[in-house]
């Protein structure tokens, strides 16, 4: 009963499917475009920056944007454009790493308690509740201050703050999937519990947490640059975007806006790209839900 499905695009050539996908999901178009820009920028920043991001050139300090320095120079004469390129790369990589780690750890920590229930579930959820009772940024800040501010530690600090959200999302989906007939069906043919969990439950439960992880890549960029801005994250002279914003902050009032603003805009664009991609992931997930 009902109208036959004329909308599925299975069987058409790849380029046609991509085009129709882009038309159906504007979020993919927007996010994809931005993300592409960001990635190209990041790669370019590593391979061939116009100037060395770390090269100090006191004679050319605080020059406004112009032909030689498209984004101007900072107080040490460093080319802001090259620094923004490099910093974007750093931040995007950190964001992706945090998202991937949070997704991996969170999914595992949500799958096992969700499927098995009992005391494991109680303990894990209470721990997650405790961690979630702190605002993520403050929690990451406290951890970073305690364990030190190398790049690795910053990643750890932010990941710890994010993991419980993934745990909770995964667990919710697992609870739903656990009662499905296909789980019964898998048990009925003799599948062991680990097999049921990893091959049947997890793939069908991972959707919402994948969407969340995509968004988290963007938020991680914000959090990491925020930590660095406060001095608790990445340290100068590393050209991380938050560090750059911090270093240029005091010059805004005296009119040298470019030192802070360009890195700031880069942060916005990177976060926006991941927000759009997360939207697309969400749209896709809901579309498949029917």
């Amino acid at each position, binding site marked *: *009963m*009902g*109208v*036959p499905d*004329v909308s599925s695009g299975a069987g058409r050539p790849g380029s046609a499917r991509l085009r129709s996908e882009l038309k159906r999901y504007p979020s993919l178009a927007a996010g994809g475009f931005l993300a592409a820009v960001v990635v190209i920028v990041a790669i370019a920043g590593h391979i061939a920056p116009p100037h060395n991001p770390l090269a100090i050139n006191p004679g050319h300090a605080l020059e406004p944007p112009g032909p030689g320095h498209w984004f101007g120079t900072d107080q040490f004469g460093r080319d802001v454009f090259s620094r923004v390129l490099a910093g974007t790369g750093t931040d995007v990589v950190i964001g992706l790493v945090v998202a991937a780690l949070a997704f991996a750890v969170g999914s595992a920590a949500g799958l096992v308690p969700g499927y098995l229930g009992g005391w494991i579930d109680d303990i894990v959820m209470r721990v997650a509740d405790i961690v979630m009772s702190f605002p993520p940024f403050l929690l990451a800040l406290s951890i970073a201050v305690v364990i030190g501010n190398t790049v690795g530690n910053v990643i750890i600090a932010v990941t710890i703050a994010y993991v419980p959200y993934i745990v909770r999302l995964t667990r919710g989906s697992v609870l739903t999937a656990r009662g499905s007939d296909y789980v019964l069906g898998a048990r009925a043919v003799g599948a062991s519990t680990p097999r049921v969990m990893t091959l049947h439950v997890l793939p069908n439960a991972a959707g919402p947490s994948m969407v969340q992880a995509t968004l988290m890549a963007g938020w991680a960029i914000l959090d990491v640059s925020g930590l660095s801005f406060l001095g608790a994250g990445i340290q100068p002279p590393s050209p991380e975007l938050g560090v750059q914003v911090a270093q240029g902050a005091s010059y805004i009032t005296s009119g040298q806006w470019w030192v802070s603003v360009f890195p700031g805009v880069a942060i916005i664009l990177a976060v926006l790209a991941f927000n759009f991609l997360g939207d697309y992931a969400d749209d896709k997930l809901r579309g498949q839900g029917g």
Partner: protein
Amino acid sequence: MPGLRIEGLCISIGDRDVVRAVDLHVAPGACAGLAGGSGSGKSLTALASLGLLPRPARVRAGRILLDGGETVAPDRDRTARVRGSGIAMIFQSPRAALNPVLRVGHQVERVLRRKGRRGDLRQRCVELLGTVGLLEPDQAARLYPHELSGGMCQRVLIAMGIASEPRILIADEPTTALDVTVQADILDLLDDLRARTGMGMLLISHDMSVVAERCESISVMRQGAIVEAGTTRAVIDSPRHPFTAELVRDLTHPPGTGHEAGG
């Protein structure tokens, strides 16, 4: 000409006809049956009668008349509804058709209000729930759909359907998801309502025995077209189309359930 009359109905999706040249007549007080498998177009035909065709589908040709007045024609606004007491419809999966967060009495009252009924809605709602066979209808009205069985939910939906005192009721697989005893009860209820209100009914089902038991005339649909139509007796006793013959073959009670009419 009184009753529901569907003439030459063609429904298309894109440039493909999914329902072709369908003619149906439901006289007042009569029960007409429409039998066919899934994908035969029977549900689309029903939805078209209420102007409820889902988006890509549209009426390409033909017309639908209620008591001589045209209700649906091609190029007409798809959302044109039959005004006043016209056609009502009930569907399969009754629990899914009810709002799970509202009490059933509330949902019946909403229908009453939307149909322009004034006065004591509560009273009328309880009356309706009693008419459809719910015990202690005032208590029943306070329940939520999940507290009711499938059969009871279907009764509530029938109450909502007859709230507008329709002249035609279309029942699309009304008992498919239900137990055999509940099915018989619901079909008895529908027959009873027909006798009382003079309402005509179009009973749609893939189960030929349901249609054969309750309807005076049967139309058999397959792949968008009517392949056979006639009185129940004629269609059952001497089916002309091979598809009908198949369906009728299923009716021959196998050893173990042999009950012939008049037993």
